[in-house]
């Protein structure tokens, strides 16, 4: 029995535990314990992973567990992690933990809320530990669906519309994904005799190039929709704006990462030739995402919309870097996923906390909050600075790795487009400072705000956890990048084995 099974078992136990509870107090306690254990477990996993690597184990996936599930189709319940997924799991653990504390005061149907939240989380965990495309897809959809209820029941604003839009768009994404995955499966064996869903085994063979050309766009866009790829990103602003705090955190923080991770793990890894051929199309789209999201964020007035568009921009950068297909840029993409996951979770947590106090998210209606809620204010500034890529926080590390890596591309087109994408950092600064200026600084505009309470202890736990993680990566990125690099190396080796022809 591999340790990875625990990542599925613990959420199930937690859900069972919540079912047995009676009220908010008990259910949130159970959830906090469950997800706390889950977070610790993810840290333990990081430790065990590093120790295992230190002993010289160079297998692509560690802690593998494999059980044949549907023998006919050769579907396995197959688990395993490499450095990349370990990092993503740690991210998920942290964000989910923080999310539980950010929703400490859910009073309406609390048990249902926590159950949905944990189902969502387990979908994400399952996705990251899956080695089998089928289970990966299963967990992917499992993670998407609780969103509907979470937004629809506990959300605010035009929640029903947003929830529906989000769900349908993501399911449309999974429609494309379905085609991609089935196509990969049916070409996973050169002589069609030993079809498999196993990622590692498929990666050993070469899918016929005609099929790759056909399947790659499906797979990439399918994941891309979840990764807020332009122009399929519009579920994100509405969805995030309407979602309750913890859901925004989880969704922007980890669920959107499924897109980037999948695009990398499935689309590019398994279909490198087509990826090389078609990368330029998606590079253009993603660089539009990056800049476009930032510009859009600059004129939004709703805090959540700002952050949602900022996520479009940042997640665009993830896909952008993945498409660069060299080790450094891909490394950056993964660091960016983690970094953005933490930052945006922090943002959404803070927005939720501020909204809980001021009952508005329109920045023009607020002002001078730094004075009355200094803790939240300071953390907001930290989050903002992290988001605009200040050294010392994770965002800087991620962006710099991406830009440096992307700029190392031999092709001029790639370098030019890197500069285009890099220009987003200025616009990011514009909108972040605009928010900080309007929201926290200046005179207090509303007398009600004079009597706001600063963060409660559970809110502090939630935010400090995230700030610590952001800073830790920002100050000491090397352990993370080394871990990722090790696992990236064989993947990049496979990618770079392909003859690269310049576009221009």
């Amino acid at each position, binding site marked *: 029995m591999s340790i990875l099974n625990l990542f599925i078992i613990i959420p199930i136990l937690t859900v069972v535990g919540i079912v047995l509870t009676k009220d908010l107090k008990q259910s949130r306690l159970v959830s906090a314990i469950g997800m706390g254990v889950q977070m610790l477990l993810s840290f333990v996993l990081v430790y065990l992973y590093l120790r295992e690597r230190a002993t010289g184990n160079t297998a692509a996936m560690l802690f593998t567990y494999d059980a044949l*599930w549907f*023998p*006919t189709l050769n579907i396995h319940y197959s688990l395993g992690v490499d450095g990349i997924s370990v990092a993503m799991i740690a991210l998920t653990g942290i964000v989910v933990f923080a999310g539980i504390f950010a929703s400490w005061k859910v009073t309406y149907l609390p048990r249902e809320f926590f159950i949905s939240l944990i189902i969502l989380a387990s979908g994400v965990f399952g996705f990251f530990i899956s080695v089998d495309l089928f289970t990966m897809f299963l967990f992917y959809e*499992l993670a998407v669906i609780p969103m509907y*209820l979470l937004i*629809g029941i506990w959300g605010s604003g035009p929640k029903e519309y947003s929830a529906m839009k989000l*769900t349908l768009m993501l399911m449309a994404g999974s*429609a494309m994904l*379905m085609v991609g995955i089935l196509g990969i499966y049916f070409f996973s064996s050169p002589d069609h005799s030993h079809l498999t869903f196993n990622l590692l085994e498929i990666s050993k063979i070469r899918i016929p190039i005609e099929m790759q050309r056909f399947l790659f766009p499906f797979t990439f866009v399918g994941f891309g929709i979840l990764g807020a790829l332009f122009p399929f990103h519009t579920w994100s602003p509405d969805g995030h704006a309407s979602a309750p705090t913890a859901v925004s955190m989880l969704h922007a923080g980890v669920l959107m990462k499924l897109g980037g991770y999948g695009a990398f793990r499935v689309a590019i890894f398994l279909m490198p030739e087509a990826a090389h051929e078609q990368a330029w199309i998606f590079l253009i789209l993603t660089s539009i995402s990056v800049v476009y999201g930032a510009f859009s964020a600059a004129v939004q007035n709703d805090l959540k919309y700002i952050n949602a568009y900022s996520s479009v921009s940042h997640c665009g950068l993830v896909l952008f870097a993945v498409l660069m297909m060299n080790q450094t840029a891909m490394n950056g993409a993964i660091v960016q996923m983690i970094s953005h996951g933490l930052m945006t979770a922090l943002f959404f947590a803070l927005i939720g906390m501020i909204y809980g106090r001021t009952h508005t998210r329109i920045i023009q209606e607020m002002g001078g909050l730094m004075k009355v809620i200094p803790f939240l204010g300071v953390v907001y500034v930290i989050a903002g600075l992290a988001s605009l890529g200040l050294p010392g926080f994770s965002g800087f590390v991620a962006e710099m790795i991406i830009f440096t890596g992307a700029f190392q591309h031999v092709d001029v087109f790639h370098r030019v487009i890197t500069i285009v994408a890099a220009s987003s950092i200025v616009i990011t600064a514009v909108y972040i400072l605009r928010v900080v200026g309007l929201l926290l600084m200046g005179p207090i505009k509303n007398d009600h705000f004079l009597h706001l309470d600063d963060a409660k202890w559970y809110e502090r736990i939630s935010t400090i956890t995230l700030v610590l993680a952001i800073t830790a990566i920002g100050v000491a990125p090397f352990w993370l990048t080394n871990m990722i690099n090790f696992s990236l190396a064989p993947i990049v080796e496979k990618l770079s084995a392909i003859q690269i022809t310049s576009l221009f």
Partner: protein
Amino acid sequence: MNFSDILTMRHELMLTLLALVVLIIDLNLHNRNKHLIIPVTLVLFFLHTVVGFLPAEKSILFGGMYRTNSLLVMMKNILNIGVLIILLQSVTWLKKEENREKISEYFVLLFSTLIGMDFMISSGDFLMFYLGLELATIPVAALAAYTHHNTKSAEAGIKLLLSSALSSGILLFGISLIYGSTGSIYYDTVMDMYQNSPMQVMAFIFFFTGMAFKISLVPFHLWTADVYEGAPINVTSYLSVISKGAAAFILIIVMFTVFNKLAPVYNHILYLISVLTMTIGNLFALRQKNMKRFLAFSSIAQAGFILLGILGGNVLGMTSVIYFVLVYIFSNLGAFGVVSAIQTVTGKESMDDYDGLYATNPKLSLLMMLALFSLAGIPPVAGFFGKFFLFASAASAGYYWLVFIAVLNATVSLYYYLLVVKAMFINKNETPLAYFKSDLATRTGLILSGLGIFILGFWSQIYEVINSLSFGIIH
């Protein structure tokens, strides 16, 4: 022909016996005690279901008119389970004062249609096929018109009966041409003799429309919604689940055996019909407010998915269709069970009446949600697996665009399934339906379908068993 041969026909024989026993008991019961028939029948049918699971041998009786093997027996068992759940779910309704006088008739009619389906599944020639088809249809029309005082019920009855008469007329015309061109009504001979001459293709199309009528494929589906809406709820669920399931089984058997040589032609037809069915079914389902009508159109859309498996043409496709039908039976029975429970107790069957249901009847709402998710193909419930395998089988034959269209349609279907979920969980309602407690039988039925929805997906053994029995297109 000896005793063991008769044993291989146990499904049909026992059901006939069962129907007669019910009739006889009914004749000997005083009017006041008519309701005693219900538990007796339930127990007997349960026994029948259990006996159905006894191992079966492959055999051919009546000179090829009746065939049976493990696969066919399993299909019948699947139908039996579905019927058992429907019977459980209809107990409350049957006990109502207005139905008191007609309890045994309900059972007898239901069983006779089931006999018809069993014969249809086991048929080895077109004669038995046709007989089974009619036996499976005519009593259902009577059942649809079961509720006298309800004009809708009568309307449903006549619409079903006349439409089916027309469709079986066309089907018969097709059969007659098949007979004329091959010289036989026996499947094995037809299979050998069939060529793809235009006349035979036309004969096939006539035949196919009759089948398409049964499983409500567009454009032969128009009766479905009206009949589903008008018929008593349990009859509706019988029609949508058992009738359609049986028709799907037979369709796949016929397509994969008798008309196997036609595959290059009928694949095109199926492609077209499948796209039409999914899309039109979804479009209509989008704006339905009546739950029965809503589920009717949803089940039309589901039928479109079934064709994907047939398009696959291989063992995988056959397995997937059978498995999907099994999953579909449980999912739809979950949904219909809830609608039935609510309709029987409160008389409400509009989607608006479901607003805020979760507050008062959380368990029903949860079951409904699971069932709808299963119908929509959302993990971890069984529908996801069912759909996935269907798509896989279509993809295995290279129909990637069809898979894409189908999954997009599944997304649209998710929209309207979520509308119901939204009604139950999100919509606010000042006066939601009051809490009520269903009786034991109904609850058992609901729990059984709920369990099925949950277990079928994870328990791969079921899929594997089906797979081990399936054969795909015989070349």
